[in-house]
C-alpha cells in the first residue's frame, strides 16, 4: 500500500466530527464499566484520526493497524477472560470502533462506524435501563442520524439542515416505533441462555452472615424493589420481606443451602385471614432469591419455586428488572412436623464455640421451665439490659456471640438474630435465620412502597411444639423503632440533623419521592412491559383473549395505516405548487393569442411564436411573458405579479 492511497484530502471534515460525536455518545454510558485503557485507546484514536484529516496527513500503515488490533484483542481477552456477554462485547465494540477509525478513508467507510455506534447504544441499554435511557437513546439517535446524513447527503446541506432533517425523520418514525413496541408480542422464555456478566458485583443481600466481621453496615439508598398493593398497605411491623434462610452455623458464620425445589414446602403453610395481593418490581440482583411478604402462597414469576424453609428462588439469576404479582398471608403457620433427625440438625452448634452463651442459655432454660417461657425470658433480657442498636458496632474477634452478648452489647439485626438463634440452639430449640428486608417507605405520590437496600434485615424462626416454625425478631425487642419507623427514615432524620437543615432536606426528600414515583411508574409501565402486562393492556384495549397472532395482525394493520399516512404527509410536503394566480392570468393571454402551447414548449419559445403570428403586439407579448416568468420563478414575484396583471388587462 502506498502512502498516496493512505492520504487524506479533508473530504471527511464535514461528516467526521459528527461521526466522532455519535461514537462518543454511544460509548459514554459504557465508560464506568470499561477498563481505563479501552476508553483511553478510543479517545486517542479519535483525536489522532481527526488530526490526520485536518492536517491532510496519511493514515497509519496496515501493519501498525494489524498490530494494534491484535494487541487490543488480547487486552480484552486478558481483562475479561471471555468475549461473550454485554461487558466484553461492548469493550470489543469500542475497540473495533477505535481501530476502524484509523482505516476510515472514504465517506462510506463511516457506515461501519455508525452501525457500531448503534450496537454500542443497544448494548448499553442491555446493560441497564433507567428512566433516562429513553432521552439518552433519542439524543444518540439524533446525533447518529445527523452524522449519517452528513455522510450521505449532497454537498450543499449544512449541518443544521442535516440535524433538522434527521429530527423530522425521527418524528415520522416515532409513531411507527410506538405502535410496534406496544403490539409486538413479548415472549416469556429466552431463545438462548443470557450470558451472566461476572464482571459486575451483585447488589443486595449476601448469601452468608457473619456478624462481627463487618464493623459497619453500608446504608445504601439504592432501591431493592417497589411494591404496589391492591388494597391497603400493611402496617410496618407486618412488612417482613422474606428472602433466603440460613440454617448452618460454624461459630462465626451462618450459611444456607443453594436454591432448590421442595414440593412439600408450600403444603406446610396453613393460612388464616384475608390474603394480601400486591405487585413487586424487583431491581436486578444477579441472584436467584425472590422476595415476597412473609408468607407467600401464590406468585406469578416464571421459573420460580418454593424451596425448603419456604424460600422463593428462581432457577435463573435475576439479570433484568422483573415484575411479578404475589399473594401473601401475614397470618400463617408452618405446621411442619420435625423428625428427630431434623430437630437435631436445626439445633446443632459447633463443639466448644461460644461457651458462655451456651452456659447462659441452659441456665435461663432451667429457670424458665418451658420453651415458651424461655423465649420470652431471652427477649426480656435483650430488651431490659443495656443492649443498643447501632449500625457501627465494634468488631468481635473469636467467639463473637459471647463477646457480643456479654461484652460489647452493641449491634444491628444480624448480631441479635445470630445471638438469639445460638441461645435457642443451645437448649435444643430448632432455629434458623431469615434474611430479607423489613419495612420500606411509603411513597405517597406513587402510592407504592419503596424498599431500599438499607432496609435489609435479619430475623429468626424457631420451631416450637404445636406451633411449628414461628417468626421471632429479636431486633424488635431491642429497638422497636427499627421495625416501626424503618431504617431509611431513621437515616434520613439523622442526615437532616447532621446538616442542621431540616426544612431544605425535607424538600429534598419530597423531590426524591416525586422522582421515585415517576421512576416507579416508568419501571412498571414501560421497562416492565412484559408478556403479562402486554396481555392485560391488550384486554384493556378491548382485544378478547389476546394471542400473538392477533397482536401481530393488529401491528401490521396499524403499521400499514401509519406508513400510508406518512406517505401522504410526504406527498403534501413535496407537491408542486398549485396553479397560482399568475398562471391563471397567463392562461388569459394564451387564450387570446389563438395558439396552444405545445407540450414541453417554454414560455419564451411560445412568446416567439405568438409574436411571429402578429395577432398581439410584440411588446405586449414580451412584457407579459417576462412578467409571468418573473412572477412564477423570480425573486421579486409580488411586483412582477402586479406588472403581469396590468399587462394582461391592457392587452384587450
Amino acid at each position, binding site marked *: 500500500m502506498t502512502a498516496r492511497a493512505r492520504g487524506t484530502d479533508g473530504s471527511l471534515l464535514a461528516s467526521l466530527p459528527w461521526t466522532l460525536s455519535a461514537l462518543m455518545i454511544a460509548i459514554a454510558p459504557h465508560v464506568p464499566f470499561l477498563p481505563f485503557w479501552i476508553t483511553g485507546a478510543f479517545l486517542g484514536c479519535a483525536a489522532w484520526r481527526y488530526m490526520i484529516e485536518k492536517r491532510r496527513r496519511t493514515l497509519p500503515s496496515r501493519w501498525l493497524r494489524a498490530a494494534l488490533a491484535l494487541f487490543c484483542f488480547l487486552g480484552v481477552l486478558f481483562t475479561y477472560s471471555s468475549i461473550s456477554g454485554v461487558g466484553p462485547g461492548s469493550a470489543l465494540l469500542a475497540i473495533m470502533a477505535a481501530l476502524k477509525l484509523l482505516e476510515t478513508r472514504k465517506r462510506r467507510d463511516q457506515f461501519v462506524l455508525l452501525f457500531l455506534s448503534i450496537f454500542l447504544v443497544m448494548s448499553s*441499554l442491555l446493560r441497564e435501563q433507567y428512566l433516562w435511557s429513553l432521552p439518552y437513546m433519542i439524543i444518540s439517535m439524533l446525533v447518529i442520524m445527523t452524522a449519517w446524513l452528513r455522510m450521505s447527503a449532497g*454537498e450543499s446541506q449544512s449541518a443544521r439542515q442535516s440535524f433538522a432533517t434527521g429530527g423530522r425523520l425521527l418524528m415520522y418514525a416515532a409513531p411507527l416505533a410506538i405502535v410496534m*413496541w406496544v403490539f409486538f408480542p413479548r415472549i416469556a422464555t429466552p431463545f438462548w441462555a443470557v450470558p451472566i456478566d461476572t464482571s459486575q458485583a451483585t447488589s443486595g443481600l449476601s448469601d452468608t452472615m457473619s456478624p462481627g466481621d463487618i464493623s459497619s453496615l453500608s446504608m445504601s439508598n439504592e432501591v431493592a424493589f417497589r411494591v404496589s398493593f391492591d388494597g391497603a398497605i400493611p402496617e410496618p411491623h407486618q412488612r417482613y420481606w422474606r428472602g433466603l434462610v440460613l440454617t448452618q452455623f460454624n461459630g462465626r458464620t451462618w450459611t444456607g443451602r443453594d436454591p432448590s425445589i421442595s414440593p412439600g414446602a408450600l403444603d406446610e403453610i396453613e393460612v388464616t385471614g384475608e390474603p394480601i395481593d400486591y405487585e413487586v418490581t424487583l431491581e436486578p440482583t444477579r441472584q436467584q432469591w425472590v422476595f415476597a411478604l412473609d408468607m407467600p402462597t401464590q406468585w406469578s414469576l416464571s421459573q420460580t419455586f418454593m424451596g425448603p424453609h419456604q424460600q422463593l428462588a428462581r432457577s435463573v439469576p435475576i439479570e433484568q428488572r422483573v415484575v411479578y404479582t404475589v399473594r401473601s398471608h401475614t397470618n400463617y403457620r408452618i405446621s411442619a412436623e420435625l423428625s428427630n433427625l431434623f430437630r437435631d440438625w436445626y439445633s446443632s452448634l459447633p463443639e466448644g464455640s461460644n461457651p458462655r452463651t451456651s452456659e447462659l442459655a441452659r441456665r435461663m432454660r432451667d429457670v424458665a421451665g418451658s420453651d415458651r417461657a424461655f423465649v420470652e425470658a431471652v427477649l426480656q433480657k435483650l430488651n431490659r439490659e443495656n443492649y443498643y442498636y447501632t449500625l457501627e458496632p465494634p468488631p468481635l474477634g473469636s467467639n463473637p456471640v459471647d463477646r457480643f452478648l456479654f461484652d460489647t452489647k452493641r449491634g444491628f439485626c444480624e448480631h441479635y438474630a445470630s445471638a438469639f438463634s445460638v441461645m435457642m440452639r443451645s437448649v435444643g430449640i430448632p432455629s434458623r435465620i431469615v434474611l430479607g428486608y423489613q419495612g420500606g417507605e411509603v411513597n405517597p405520590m406513587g402510592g407504592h412502597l419503596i424498599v431500599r437496600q438499607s432496609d435489609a434485615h435479619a430475623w429468626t424462626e424457631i420451631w416450637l411444639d404445636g406451633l411449628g416454625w414461628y417468626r421471632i425478631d429479636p431486633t424488635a425487642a431491642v429497638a422497636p423503632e427499627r421495625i416501626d419507623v424503618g431504617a431509611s427514615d431513621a437515616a434520613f432524620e439523622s442526615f437532616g440533623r447532621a446538616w442542621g437543615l431540616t426544612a431544605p432536606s425535607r424538600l429534598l426528600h419530597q423531590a426524591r419521592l416525586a422522582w421515585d414515583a415517576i421512576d416507579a411508574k416508568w419501571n412498571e409501565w414501560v*421497562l416492565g412491559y412484559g408478556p403479562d402486562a402486554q396481555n392485560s393492556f391488550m384486554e384493556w384495549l378491548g382485544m378478547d383473549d389476546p394471542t400473538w397472532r392477533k397482536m401481530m395482525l393488529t401491528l401490521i394493520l396499524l403499521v400499514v395505516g401509519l*406508513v400510508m399516512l406518512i406517505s401522504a404527509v410526504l406527498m403534501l410536503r413535496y*407537491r408542486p405548487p398549485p396553479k397560482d394566480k399568475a398562471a391563471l392570468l397567463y392562461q388569459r393571454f394564451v387564450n387570446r393569442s389563438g395558439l396552444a402551447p405545445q407540450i414541453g414548449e417554454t414560455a419564451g419559445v411560445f412568446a416567439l411564436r405568438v409574436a411571429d403570428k402578429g395577432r398581439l403586439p410584440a411588446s405586449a407579448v414580451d412584457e407579459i411573458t417576462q412578467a409571468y416568468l418573473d412572477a412564477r420563478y423570480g425573486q421579486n414575484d409580488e411586483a412582477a405579479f402586479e406588472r403581469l396583471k396590468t399587462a394582461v388587462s391592457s392587452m384587450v
Partner: protein
Amino acid sequence: MSSIQWPFPDLRAQISSVKARAGDRVQSWARKRQGSDPVTTRLRSSRVYILPTGVGMIFGFMAFAMLLGSMNYNNNMSFVLTFVLVGIGFVSMHQCQRNLVGLELTFAGADPVFAGQAIRFRIAVTNQSKSARYGIRLHATGTSSDIHDLAPGESKVFILPVPTTRRGRITLDRFGVRTMFPFELFRSWAWLHMDISGLVFPAPADDAPQPPPTMVAHGHRQHDARGEEDFAGLRKYHEGDSPHHVAWKAYARSGQLLSKQFAGADTSSQWFDFGAIETNDVEERLSVLTRWIVDADRTLEDYGLRVPGAEFKPAHGELHRRNCLETLALFEGGRS
C-alpha cells in the same frame, strides 16, 4: 501441494451477463410501459422505482438481529431502539421515493463536439415544490452526472457527459435520475426516454495534407462618390496587405494584426473540395476537411466547401463553420 482452484472460473462473467440481459429486459419493458417522454417531463410516482441498497440490506439484517436480541433479553428499551430503526427504514423508503417524484426534467441541448470528445448533454432539473431535494444524480449507460441538491423552486442544469467515437447524430435513448437520500438505505430511480440528440463532427485529422492554395480573386472596384469602398469586415493580416488597411484599433485591443476588408476588394479564398483529397476513404476525407475548416476558421480565412451534394461559397464566421461541419457530420454519400 496444488492450490485450490475456484470451481466456477466463469461464474462472475456469467452473472454479470445475466444481470445485463435482465437489465435490458427490464429497461425495454419500462420503455414500452412509459412510451416516449416529451422534452419536459415531470416525474410521476408510478414511474419511480425503489429498491434497497447494500447498506440498506445490512441495516435490515442489523435491525433483525437487534430484534432477536431484544426478544431474548426481553429488554424494553432495546425494543424501542430496534423499532425506531425499523421505523426509520420505512420512513426513509418513502422519503427516498418522494425525493424524486414531481421533479421536472427538461432537455436543454448539447453543444456539438468532435468525434472522440465527450458530448455534454445538458438536462435541467427543476424542483417546484416547497421542500429541498437532496442528492440527485442523473445517469446513463456508463456515465453519470455530479450529485446536486435542489433548493425549493430551484432549477439546476445537470451535465451528462457521453463519450463519442464516430461522427453523426448521437442520441441519448434513455437516461435515469436517481437518489439515495436519505441514509443511502434505498435507491430510487426513474428512466426517461426523451428525444435527446447531439451532433458529433468528424474528428479533425492529425496529419492532414496542406490545404489547397489560396486563390486571390480580383473584385470590381466600385468607387462611390466619396471614393471609399464598403467596409466588409476584418481578416487576418497577410504579408503584402496595405498598411492603410490594417485595423490598428483592433490591434491595440487584441494584439492581433488584422486587415480591413472591403467589398469589391481583392479577397483570398480557399475551396475545400471533397473530391480533391488523395484518399479513397470517405471518413478520412471528412476528417481532413474538418481539420482544414477548423484551421481556416481559427485564422479567419474565407473558405468554401464542396462535397457531393452540397456546396458552400467561401465565407467565414460561426454560422458558416457550423453549416460546413454539420454537413460533414451528417454526410451520407460515402456510407454503404
